[in-house]
């Protein structure tokens, strides 16, 4: 595709006029914006609001004093990162003028426009942003409850269970043992995450437990970046990884925690030395309690703004939302957050919301100097749609010239680390 240079240049002055608009908006958009949840959605929203709309009064309600990212948790399993290196505090956001309140938000009153905190205090808002992340559906897999998760860790929600629980079990696993994973059906947090985890555990085994095996039991018949992951597994970890999809009886319906056993749909009993169960999920509790979720357990939003489709003056972000074809990823939450803040500022000033363009890049590490990615540009109108002809996954080996393959994978591994530093720097730096 080619672009006419003339139309590009002609369009520029109009864009320059749009750049001048925020200063006008600043005088008009004063209002109280309260944000519940200090993860990728909430922290990005708070930072963007302070940078771009300084007249807004911004309060961030987050029960924890620190945030450990889900991304790069798999690199802790590989032994590449420490949990400290993926944990951040809210001091810098506070220094930027965000009022950070370390309390649990226990209720939302959308009529009175107030959020109740665990200490009984109430926080009034003009516009509310809810970015609550996920809750795990205990019991959706029979007998998989919080007690079972101590023996069979999920490692999928750092505020419920740190990744170090699973890390410790991996380090203590017997030589030549079997690592079993149960992977849920869509939708769930971080679609490529389980497969990056397989890769990072394999990297660890290759060095420290070379006879160990990995058996992944999946409730789906396909997964994100599948050809790239499977090519890499064959190349880097031949014979180590077996992946069983739903049509091959891969769906885990029950567990026996005492026996470290998964039970599949057709009653196959699979025992592991270490068993990682990633259970089905739903929107975080505060969103469900406030009537932001529908019967699916997830929150419908208006694709043009990310305002709740069910409750007015509340915006919902990130993994909690129904936003397909956007994935439940940190990057997606961050671009949703910025758009939502721009829409909130516009609504407070009585202006139309800006055109909705969302963006996502998800990198996965699959081995040393070996990264892969998926990219998407999305537009929101009546529906959320991915821009045709754009985005997609990294090229497969067969589509790359032999002399460029290694360099391509190496660059994507470097860019993955650059992405992590940039996005966490924006949130917490």
């Amino acid at each position, binding site marked *: *595709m*080619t*672009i006419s*240079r003339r*139309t*590009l*240049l*002609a*369009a*520029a*002055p*109009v*864009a*320059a*006029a*749009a*750049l*001048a*608009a*925020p200063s006008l908006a600043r005088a008009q958009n004063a209002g109280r914006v309260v944000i519940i949840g200090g993860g990728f959605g909430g922290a990005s929203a708070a930072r*963007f609001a302070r*940078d*771009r709309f300084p007249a807004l009064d911004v309060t961030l309600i987050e029960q924890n004093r620190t945030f450990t990212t889900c991304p790069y948790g798999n690199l802790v399993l590989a032994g590449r990162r420490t949990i400290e290196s993926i944990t951040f505090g809210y001091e810098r956001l506070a220094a930027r003028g965000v009022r950070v309140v370390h309390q649990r938000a226990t209720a939302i009153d959308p009529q009175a426009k107030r959020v109740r905190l665990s200490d009984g205090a109430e926080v009034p808002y003009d516009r509310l942003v809810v970015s609550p992340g996920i809750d795990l559906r205990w019991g959706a897999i029979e007998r998989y409850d919080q007690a079972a998760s101590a023996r069979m860790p999920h490692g999928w929600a750092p505020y419920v269970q740190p990744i170090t629980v699973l890390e410790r079990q991996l380090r203590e696993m017997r030589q030549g043992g079997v690592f079993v994973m149960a992977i849920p059906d869509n939708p769930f947090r971080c679609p490529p995450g389980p497969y990056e985890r397989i890769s990072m555990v394999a990297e660890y085994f290759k060095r420290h437990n070379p006879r160990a095996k990995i058996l992944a039991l999946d409730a789906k018949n396909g997964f994100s970046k599948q050809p790239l992951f499977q090519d890499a597994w064959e190349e880097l970890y031949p014979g180590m990884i077996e992946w069983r999809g739903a049509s091959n009886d891969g769906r885990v319906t029950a567990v026996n925690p005492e026996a470290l056993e998964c039970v599949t749909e057709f009653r196959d009993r699979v025992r592991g030395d270490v068993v990682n169960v990633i259970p089905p999920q739903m929107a975080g509790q505060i969103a469900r309690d406030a009537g932001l979720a529908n019967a699916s357990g997830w929150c419908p939003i208006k694709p043009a703004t990310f305002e709740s489709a069910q409750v007015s003056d509340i915006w919902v972000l990130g993994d909690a939302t129904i936003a397909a074809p956007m994935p439940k990823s940190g*990057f997606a939450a*961050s*671009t949703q957050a*910025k*758009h939502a803040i*721009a829409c909130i500022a516009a609504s407070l000033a009585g*202006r*139309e*919301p*800006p*055109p909705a*363009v*969302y*963006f996502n*890049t998800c990198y996965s590490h699959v081995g040393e100097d070996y990264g892969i990615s998926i*990219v*998407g*540009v999305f537009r929101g109108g009546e529906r959320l749609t991915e*821009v045709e*002809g*754009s*985005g*997609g996954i*990294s090229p497969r080996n067969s589509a790359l010239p032999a002399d*460029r393959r290694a360099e*391509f994978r190496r*660059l*994507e591994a*470097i*860019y993955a*680390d*650059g*992405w992590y*530093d*940039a996005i966490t*720097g*924006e949130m917490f730096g």
Partner: protein
Amino acid sequence: MRIPSLAAAALLACGTAAAQVPDGALLGSACAGCHGVTGEGGHGIPSIRQMHGREHFVELMRAFRANERPNTVMGRIARGYTEAEIAALAAHFARAQ
């Protein structure tokens, strides 16, 4: 080359078409996810701030779109944006501090 006057552009922006005018700063906030808040780059990711004149930025994106320049993700990204959006991004990063 004829460039419409700023006043004319401002009139356009204040009219009903205002919502359709790309917002370079908002669009550019997505680039921040990898290139940093001000496009400064780092950790192996190139800077897209200031060092590129507006035209150079547009030419780069055009080359990425057409896969005429080696890249990993930028071709897949550039093909998702309109010409007006790329122009707005170029203007934004030309000014970013």
